[in-house]
Structure formats: structure tokens, C-alpha cells
């Protein structure tokens, strides 16, 4: 049991106020309190990447962060990557176009990571994005299609 703290977060551009116990991980606040399904606890150890979110623009494991640690900060989840008109982001669209999903439980985390990699280095090579994705695991083994989506994005960036 923990004493609850009331705090404010920016989630996908919206300010939200939540009351959470000190030992609640961010993944549970996002998923269970705010209904953001794309954020999924799988390993609980920061290894698999299915709970990946962007914290002030950098990717983090929301299972290894307490919500109280990120009070006042800005969080983006996969749901928040889509454009205002509801259309998919460039990276999301490349995943759809290349069939880069199977059961897709890991895919929102993959997309978050690819977005962050390009934000950090817009001219990243396919090999660099691949290294960056090393901590996002996919049990269906969709890696080949994911790299095809990444290749398309890298080409598009250069054109």
C-alpha cells in the first residue's frame, strides 16, 4: 500500500491529473487509468519494449518508471503519434504498407522507437535504426518486415 499523490502529466498533448500511489509504474497509470491500450506490460523488466513511450521526446520503458517520478512531464504514446485528422504518421503508415505486424503486440513500441531514432538522427541508416531497435523484441519474428519498413523510411528521408 502506498500513500497517493495527485499529479499532472501531459499525455499526448493533453494535461491530465491523476491520483496514484507512489509505487505505481507509469505503464499502469497510462493503461489502467488513462485507457491507453498501446502501452503494454510484457516483461516488466525494461527488456521487451512493449511499454515504450516517449518522455520529453526520448524513449523510455514505462514499466521501469514510477508515475510520481514524471510529474509535470510530457508523455507521448503510440496513440498520440497519429495526425490530428486521424491519419497515420509516416512511420505508422510505413509499417502498415510493409505488412510490418503480425500479432502486433510489440508494434506500437517498435513504432515509438523508430520515431525517436529518426527524431534524434534524421539521417540514420537502416543499420543504425536496427541497432536502435535491439531492445524492442518481437516474438512473432516480424523483424524482416520491420526492416523493410525502415528501409522505405530511410530511402524516403534521403529523397
Amino acid at each position: 500500500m502506498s500513500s497517493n499523490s495527485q499529479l499532472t502529466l501531459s499525455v499526448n498533448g493533453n494535461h491530465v491529473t491523476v491520483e496514484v500511489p507512489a509505487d505505481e509504474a507509469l505503464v499502469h497509470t497510462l493503461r489502467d487509468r488513462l485507457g491507453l491500450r498501446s502501452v503494454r506490460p510484457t516483461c516488466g523488466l525494461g527488456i521487451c519494449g512493449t511499454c515504450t513511450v516517449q518522455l520529453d521526446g526520448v524513449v523510455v520503458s514505462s514499466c521501469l518508471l514510477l508515475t510520481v517520478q514524471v510529474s509535470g512531464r510530457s508523455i507521448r504514446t503510440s496513440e498520440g503519434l497519429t495526425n490530428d485528422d486521424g491519419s497515420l504518421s509516416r512511420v505508422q503508415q510505413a509499417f502498415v504498407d510493409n505488412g510490418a505486424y503480425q500479432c502486433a503486440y510489440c508494434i506500437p513500441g517498435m513504432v515509438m522507437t523508430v520515431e525517436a531514432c529518426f527524431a534524434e538522427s534524421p539521417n540514420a541508416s537502416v543499420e543504425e535504426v536496427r541497432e536502435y531497435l535491439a531492445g524492442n523484441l518481437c516474438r512473432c519474428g516480424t523483424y524482416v518486415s520491420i526492416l523493410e519498413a525502415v528501409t522505405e523510411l530511410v530511402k524516403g528521408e534521403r529523397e
Partner: protein
Amino acid sequence: MTTSADTLVRRARVLGVSLPMPDAADRVVGTLEYTVDHSVEGMVHARLVRSPYPHARIIDVDVSGALAEDGVLRVVTGADIETAVEIPNPFFGLTRRDQAPLAIGKVRYVGDPVALVVAETPQTARAGAESVLVDYDELAYVVDPKDALVPDAPVLHDEWPGNECGEWRLDRGDVDGAMSNATHLFEATYTSPMANAVPFEPHVAIAVWVDDFLEVWTATQWPSAVRGELAHMFDIDPGKVQVRVFPLGGGYGAKSQLKIEPVVAAAARMMGRPVRLELDRDEVFLTTGKHPARMNIRTAVDAEGRFIAREIDLLYNGGAYAVVTPKAVAQGLLRSIGPYRFPNIRIRSRGVYTNTIPSGSFRGAMTNQAAFAYESHADEIAAGLGIDPYELRERNLLEDGDLFASGQVMHDIHFRELLQDVAKVIGWGKERASPAGKAIGKGLAVIIKTTPPGTRSEVRVEVHADGQVLVHTNSVDMGQGVLGTLAQLTAHHLGVDIEKVRVRDPDSSTFDSMTAGSRTTFVADHAIGEACESIRRQAAEIVAGRSYGSDPGTTPDYEEIMREASITALIGEGVYQSTPSDALSNPLDVKGEVADHWHQGAVAVEVAVDVETGKVEILRCHGAAWAGRVVNPIRARQQSEGSIIFGMGPALFEEVIFVDGQVSNPNLSDYMIPSIVDVPINLTSSSLESPDPDADIHGVGEMTIPAVAPAIANAIARATGARVRDLPMTAERVLRAILGEPE
């Protein structure tokens, strides 16, 4: 009316096209609903209390501490279930009803559920579970199947003396005679440990009772099995049990059979409230795993490298409960033979109970373990005789018209094409020079998998007045995109636009044996074809004089026909029932028709071995599957390539490790799965097709996985001269083999 030319164009478009899954955007964004996302009004949350002991008598379960926790509603124990009037049959199981929702009397493995704490919130249920005190009387336990077979070994189930969990034999020809006259004899033993399928979405289920009706939302691959067993458990008509399944966040066999559904349904029944249970990651590890296996092979070979006789002894570890083991070891027998001709062959395949996690289905089940053995063995024979491994396989591969070891005449056999395909892509015969400190080598493997006869699948296709087509099946989408694939098949058979077809998530309104064993596409094609043909016939009867049979040249305008006849829907039902066979009627004499058709696959790899550390890097990999016809190329490719990637883990480093009878690595830090950088960039696959437009569609979900480990083992051996016969082929094992240092 649609012209025949239009129809032909449309039909050409719908099959063999890489259509996206209908819910692709939701999958990528993360808005797709899985079972884990689902909630039901008024539901309460459950948490299991599990045994810390591998084998112990339950003396007492003290639930007072848990009930004292604020918010804990009820604690259910095995004893409660045993005596509950609402649960007339507390034991379940698809082969032997030897398992209770919560252990009754004794626990049989570390992790065996002992009690279920139900509370208002998951957190409270967790706290309550920590407060349940169980008094145990420890019993002697057994982990190794060989130890479980000795005369005074601890017995897990009194009803099954000697820990027997299935034994099957096959004996054809004169093995002893052939062996005694053989020019060359080879013998070796190969082992595979338990591995976990690691579906990312954990096991999760919600049970809701309304009077005598049970609705279960569960992440299962086998909704029909869940329905049947739950109906038996509560002694109600199966029609009163509805099993609802969302797309799965991964299955790979781990969500086959029954897992947590019985305990959730029992608790919901006893409490009169909807109950939800979601497992933690470590509990997923404790729930099921790949059968550990030990396979000994003796082979007699003539001077030309032809296999004259083979003797196989297979021992599978079934774990604490039978689940599917007694039947699975029969498939284990059939899948141990490999794609080769054996004039004389004798096989014994046994399953045994031990105090470990109950073994169950796993992607490539009962084929992975055997293929690692027989394909490694093939290369060992080739090396012993100084014959090229490709050539040795060529001389022994089964062909159309050959007799399988069971005596069945084989058709639709394509091993040579598969072998040629992978050898060509990998550049077989062209060896690369190894850089300093590395040894580079290539390896091949070819596999066969039986598809069990006697399975059944039902579909119902409805064409509505507005032209929309609704397909009811009990096939589960677990990432293979089956709903899209079945829509493509329906559009093809009906001759309508794919956009009009929607395949519903499973809801028990139709029966399907399982979504497993790479059987769905094959059987659904037959069942959907039949349903669509029935609709075409109905249309033809309405518009008398016309023929709308299966001729693709004539597709009716269903909307117009229904409008003219003033009917709201055309409904067609189709069943695929494969011919039952008596091949398995006598466990000690397996013979006859053992497969509906034959799954066939091959893999070739090139590896670089660091000779100082034993670390294996896969440089190049190509897999090939016999597809017959491809419905959706990207999905087929992802099955073959995903299967290869999935197979790399258990080949190189995945192993569920037992220390003192307990799993020491039930998490993704200590149990690692392959990452994107563990996979070669150069990973490709072929789905080989028949020129015949009516050729059988073969499933491709598991055609490459069994060949991965032996292909790697063979490449390591060709690179270094060192043979590893135990999985996983960890860097340490490879180094020990190179240095000749036993474990």
C-alpha cells in the same frame, strides 16, 4: 449480372495477393482490442497462490489472513472445488482428466495452483495471495524423465503407475536382421530441453455466468476444446457455453488446450460474479512449455549411403499433468521418422510424468525435437561415409508413391524441390574462407510433419441482402492474419469483392478442433469452399435454369437474386472432416493412414563460429515451405521467416532451467529471446507453389522452425568439426565441443 470476364479478373486478384489485414491500422497504432484489454461490468479480480514445492501433500490452507485483507472477497481452494455442488466434475484434461483447477490433495510441480484469491482490485488480490498460508508435507520428487521410469521413483498420479504418460510403437520390416548385416552402423542421442513460447499477451480470461449460461472471454487457440471441457466440468450442455476470443497477442502453442479457464469459470460459478484472471510473466513460464525430449537413433546404412534400417527410442517429458502428452507422443513417433525411406524401422515413443511444468503445444510441436535429432544424424552419417550431406539426402528422400514408415502411400511430396531451393540460395558447395579466429560453414535440414487425421472444422457463410458477406468460424487470429486469409478464400469461392467479406472473431457458434498445427488454411479452404458452393447452388435454384456451381466463369449477382426472391440472406454451411483413421487404434502397432497430408519444409544457414568463445553468428539463412497455393504472400512469408526467427532462440540459447525442481529463469532477463540484431539481415524464404490451380493449400506456420536447429548444428559441425547434440547450442556448449571438454 456480372459478366464472366469481370469475375475472372476479380478472382485472379483475390488469391495470391498481399492484402493487408483488415485491422492493420489498429494493430500498428495499438488500438486493437486483445483479451487483456477487455473488461466486463461488475468483474472482480483473481490471483493464484502457487506451490513452492515440486511434490507435496497439502495439509491445510489457512485463508484467514487473506480474508482479513480489505477488499478480498473470497479464497477458493482445491478442497472447495472438490466439494462444490456446482462443479460435478472437478477434473479436466483433453486426453486424461488428471488436472483440477486448483490442486486437490497434493501439488505436483513448483507453480501448481493451490488457491485463488478473488478481490475487488488486482492489487488487493495480490496482497491477499501473499497472505494465504499453506501447510505442506513434502514428498520425494522427480524432474528427469529417466529417473521417473525407475521402479521406485516417486509416483505423481496413483491412477498412472510408473508415471506412464503414453507409449506408442511402430515396427516395420526386419530391423534386427538389417542391422546385423549392415555395412555401416551409426548411433547417437540428441536432447532438447523445455522452452517457453513467450506469447507477449499473457494468459488472461474472464468468466461470466448468467443462470446456467457461461460466457468465457479467453486468450485461447482452442475455443472449442475450452467449451467442451467446461461443459463437462459443470455438467451443462455445450450449447450453454460460449467462448469468445479476441485476436491473440501471440500464441505459438502456449494458448492451446485449457489453461486458466477452468479455475476462472469455477470461481465465477461459486461467487456468482464475473471473475478475471491475468497471469504475470513468471506465471506464463509456469503454465506450459515445449516437451523436453531425448531421442536415441541407430541407423544401418549400405555402402552407397542408403538407409537400410533405423531404430528410434524417444522419451518425452510430459510434466506434472497429461494435457496432450499421451496423444502427442504418438505424433512424436510419426514426426521422428523424417523425410526418408526406411525399408526397416522400429520406433518406441514414450511420455512420462515428472514434477515439472506440464508440457503442451509449442510452435513445431513434437517435430522440432525429432528433426534436430534426425537431421543432425543425417549429417553425422554423411560425414562418417564421406558423402556430401546434400547428396546423402538426395539418395534417401521420400518421393511421390513411396511408402511412409507407417505403410501409407505418399502423395504431393516435394522434398527435392525444397532441398534444391534452399541449397541454391545458400550457395551450397561454395565454401567461403574463414577470417582469423572464425570458422565459417553451411548447413542444411529438411523436415516433414504429419497432419493428424480426424479433425473437423465448420464454417457458416452468410450473404446478406445488402451484399455484405459474414463468415463465422472458430479460427483464432494470433498474428497469422487468419481472418484476412479466410476472407480472401471466401471472396474467391463466392466470387465477390474482398471488401464485402468480414470474418467474425470466434464465438463458439461453429466448431473448429483448434487453431494449431498449421492446419487452418488447409481445412478452411475446404470448408469455405463447401459453404460457398452451397450458396451458389441456392442462388441457382432461385434463378431456375441457370447454373451457379463452382465454375468460376459464372458468378451470380447475389443482391439481385435476393431482391427478386424477397429473401434477406443466403446461408451456406461447410464442414471439413478429415477421414478418421485407425492407424492409432493400437498404440503398440502404429500403422496405416497417419496423415491427411504432409507438411514439408527446409532450411539452409551459413554460420560463423568464434572458435575462442564458441559464439555462433548466423550470417545467412533461407527457408522454404511447400505451400501448394499461396493465399496471401506476405502472410506466408512472415510465417516462414517468423518461424525461423522463433526457432533460433531454442536452437541457440533458450532453455527453461530447473534448479531443485523450480524454474530459475522465469523472466525475460534470464530467459532470452532473439532480438532484431540476433537475426541475420540476409534472411529470406520461399513458399513453393504447384502449377495446378486446384492444388491443396498447405499451411505454412511451422514448416521452417523444425529445420532451424539442425541446420545450425550441421553448419557448426561443418565449420568447426564439432558436433553439438544437445539444445540449446550455447556458446559454452559449442566451445566445449570444439575443445573436447565434456560438461
